[in-house]
Structure formats: structure tokens, C-alpha cells
């Protein structure tokens, strides 16, 4: 693995990727590379295909044309343990307590029929789970069920669960979109600290430009360059801006902001 890192091959290569559903072109001509350790934020109007792109990284959707390579190999057509995910909802298991939810990760990491842990494996999992729950600030809620938690706590739990799986890539699909702004800011701090601590590569989808502008290392703006009013499905979105975060001025922000807003949201 260390060899691959010294190699100049980037971790993720997106080569000429198109995505369409029947006649509806969602994404077109995507060409990008992402190095290990980057924190990429994906913004764009709703229906612009940023979640579709994330799902292609996850493996639940495939490009219609082109390919996405992870370490030079195509991403498998199903979710796997090298790519962690936190959805906006349904990310945790409702029938397990907080502790069980996280311990389940350890069970899933081992080969086995049932995924249940016994004996020393179980106590090791318990320790690991407790320590990661401490990191995300859920030590007080170990015995609670997800429905007893607030939205923010539930997403913390989902994060802890994903992190214990030791993914190389963490995918956040509008994970904090349903939270109150104050809580969302807390979650961003948490994600940033976890990102640097666990040496992750992060892709975060958000619909809030301001959020993406100040978080992580790189901002991708998804937008339709060509637009046919008679046939809005004719053209897909491309990545119109690929900016290093932290080196942007207010005018750029305003430019993107103005550009994103006038386009009415399209379902898709």
C-alpha cells in the first residue's frame, strides 16, 4: 500500500464519466483525480447529480460511460468496507442500542455466518466501540436506542459506526442536511477532526454552498453548462468549479452563488 502511495497514481481517477437514466442525462464528461487525504465537498442545485456521483463512488450506481478507478482498479459494483457512508437518514440500525450499533461493525468486519461476537472478540469490540463513541461524544447514551436520540446524536452514531469500519474513504450524503444550523456546525467540527485524526479521504455532498466553501480542502460545484429550455434533460451537469478551499475570495463565492441560485431546482 505504501508503494502505491509513493507512486504518482492518484487514489481516485474519474475518467470521462457520463451518467444517464434513459434519455435523462445527469452527469457528463467528468474528469477528475483525487489524492489520498483530500476532503472534497460537492455542492450544486438539487437534482444536479452530486448524490448520483457519490453513489457511483459507493458502488450502488455505475457510470453509463467512462470509469471511476480506486487505486487504479474499477470500483466494485456494490458497497464495500473500504468506503464508509453516512446517509441523511436510516443510517443506523433501529433495533440495536448505541453500543450495539457500533459493536456490530466489529462483527461485520470478521468473516462469519451470523455477525455476532462472543468471548474475547466481544469484549475487544466493546472497548473499541466505547472509545470511538467517546470521540464523537456519545458516552452518555450507550444503552439508548436510536429513536431515543436527537437527529444530531443519531448522525454522530452513524459516523462512529462508519469510522470503526476503518474505511479509507468516507462518503457523507447530505448527512447533516436535516440538522439545525448550530448542530450542523458542531458536526462539521467533528468531521474535520475525525478526518485529520483517522487520515481519511472524504467526499461530502451538501446543498449549502457556504458550508462547502469553508470546509475541507477542495470544492466541486456541479452545474449544467449547457441548458436547453425545450429539453432540460438533454444536457447533464459538469463540475464547473474545482477550487482549493481556503484560497478563495469573496468574489468567487458570490459568482458561484449567483450562478447556482437563478436556476430553478429540477427533480432528478
Amino acid at each position, binding site marked *: 500500500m505504501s508503494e502505491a502511495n509513493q507512486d504518482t497514481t492518484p487514489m481516485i481517477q474519474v475518467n470521462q464519466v457520463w451518467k444517464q437514466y434513459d434519455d435523462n442525462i445527469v452527469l457528463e464528461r467528468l474528469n477528475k483525480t483525487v489524492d489520498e487525504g483530500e476532503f472534497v465537498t460537492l455542492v450544486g442545485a438539487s437534482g444536479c447529480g452530486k448524490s448520483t456521483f457519490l453513489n457511483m463512488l459507493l458502488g450502488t450506481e455505475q457510470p453509463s460511460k467512462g470509469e471511476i478507478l480506486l487505486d487504479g482498479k474499477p470500483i466494485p459494483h456494490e458497497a464495500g*468496507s473500504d468506503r464508509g457512508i453516512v*446517509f441523511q437518514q*436510516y443510517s443506523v*440500525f433501529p433495533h440495536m442500542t448505541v453500543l450495539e450499533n457500533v459493536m456490530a461493525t466489529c462483527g461485520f*468486519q470478521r468473516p462469519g455466518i451470523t455477525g455476532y461476537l462472543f468471548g474475547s472478540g466481544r469484549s475487544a469490540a466493546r472497548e473499541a466501540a466505547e472509545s470511538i463513541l467517546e470521540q464523537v461524544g456519545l458516552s452518555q447514551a450507550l444503552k439508548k*436506542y*436510536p429513536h431515543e436520540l436527537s437527529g444530531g446524536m443519531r448522525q454522530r452514531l452513524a459516523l462512529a459506526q462508519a469510522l470503526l469500519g476503518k474505511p479509507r474513504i468516507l462518503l457523507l450524503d447530505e448527512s447533516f442536511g436535516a440538522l439545525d444550523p448550530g448542530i450542523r456546525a458542531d458536526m462539521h467540527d467533528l468531521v474535520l477532526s475525525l478526518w485529520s485524526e483517522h487520515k481519511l479521504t472524504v467526499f461530502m455532498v451538501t446543498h449549502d454552498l457556504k458550508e462547502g466553501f469553508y470546509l475541507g480542502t477542495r470544492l466541486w460545484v456541479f452545474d449544467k453548462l449547457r441548458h436547453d429550455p425545450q429539453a432540460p434533460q438533454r444536457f447533464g451537469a459538469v463540475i464547473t468549479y474545482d477550487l482549493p478551499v481556503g484560497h478563495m475570495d469573496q468574489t468567487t463565492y458570490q459568482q458561484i452563488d449567483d450562478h447556482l441560485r437563478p436556476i430553478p431546482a429540477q427533480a432528478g
Partner: protein
Amino acid sequence: MKKFINQRPGRAFKLLLGIAPFVLLFLLYVMGSDARLEVNPNDKLLPSMSQIADGLERMAFEPSKRSGEYLFWQDTASSLTRLGLGILIAAMLGLLIGLVTGALPMIAASLSPLLTVVSLIPPLAILPILFIVFGLGEVSKVVLIAIGITPFIARDIQRRTQEIPSEQLVKAQSLGANTSQIMIRVLLPQIMPKLFDAVRLSLGAGWLFLIAAEAVAATDGLGYRIFLVRRYMAMDVILPYVAWITILAFLIDVSLRELTKKLFPWYVQGGRS
């Protein structure tokens, strides 16, 4: 004055409203029975409460002259054993079929059409086949109940399994889970409370098949007894038996509900996926 649609009964009044129909029916019965018995003291159609009590006493607390058994309890034990076995088998089969067809599209492709067709066969129509194949003993009755309700439970569980958000399956895979781990740790525990619900809903059908099978061929059982004493128009036995079956059905339903609460606290409190 609020509109009628917005009016709600208070606690005590609600209880009163709930009890009232029972009391009313009871009074109607007693009055009808009195009126008929006054005209003809030998009337058998609407026995008086004391006649019913006598009938029950004879069945439940006096040993039968023929066999020396307490028939009422003997009948209850036989019927509950058949019903329990039938439902247990149906629940386990239904859970297994429902879970694999709900979770695994490859299996569903092969089993779902069969399941749909099988569920359309009227179980009572194949009762003669069961008697021919399994004989007139216990097996055929248990099999009838099992065959009768397995398709219902299996299809219900299949649908419930498919209703579990796919995010959870993807999440489990992103944590490294394989197929059997997802089925056993993610799907099965969430399906169990739904299985209890499905069993509760299928109990009515279970009783129907039980009593039908007992009516046709049996030597004891609640259904057998009712159909036996029908020949003598012994309403003083039939009525308490029907009441007893109703009470049993109610008790089974309540205990399953309470068991669900106890076993799956997260489910009852609203943590439904």
C-alpha cells in the same frame, strides 16, 4: 358545542361506552331466553344462565361417564395443542420463506410466483387430500392449519423485509457485512416483531381451520364437541364453548401483544426503521 367529529369521550365515559354493548347484548339474551322458556320450559334454543352454568359444570367439573375424563379441559388441551403446533410451524416456515424471498432477489425470482399460486388454493378444499395422505389423526389437522396460514405469513414477512430501507443494507455492507450477516443481524431482528404481528393477524384463520378440521374428523377438541352436541341441540354446551374459544383467542392475542412489547421495546416505542 364542538362538532361531533371533534368530540372525544373522557376516560371513564369511554370505558362505559365500551362496556355498554356487552351489557345490552347480555340483557337482550336473558330477556329473550326468559320469554321463550316461559312459553315452553323445554325450549333448547336460548337456555337460561343457570342451564348454561349446569352445562358447563357437567362438561368441566364432572368426569365423563364414558371415559372418566373432564371433557371440557380435554377438548381445550387437544385444540390448543393442534393450534399451537400448526401456528408454530407456519410461523417458522413463513419467517424462513418470507425472509429469503424478501432479502434475496435470486431466490424470490424462483419462489415468489409459486408462493402466490399456493396462497390462492383454498386450504379447506385440500382438507380431504390431507386426510387421505396423513390419515385422520393429529397430523392432518396440524398440517391444515400450517398450510392454511403459512402463505399469508410468508407473503407478509416478504413485504416487511422489502420495506426495510435499503440504506441499512448498504450501510451494513460498507461496514464489511456479508449476505448472511446482513440477514441475521440486520433483517431478522427487525422482522421478528412483524412476525408476531403477522401471527396475531392469522390466529383468526388458524381457529377457522382448526374447528373445520375437528368438525370433520376428530375424537376430541373444542370444534369437535360443538359439532357433536349440535345433534342434540345442546345450546347449553355450545354457547359456553363458543364463549370459551373467544376468551382463548383474546388471551392469546393479548399475550402475544405483551410479549412483543417485552421482547422488542425499540419496536413498540416507535423505532421502526
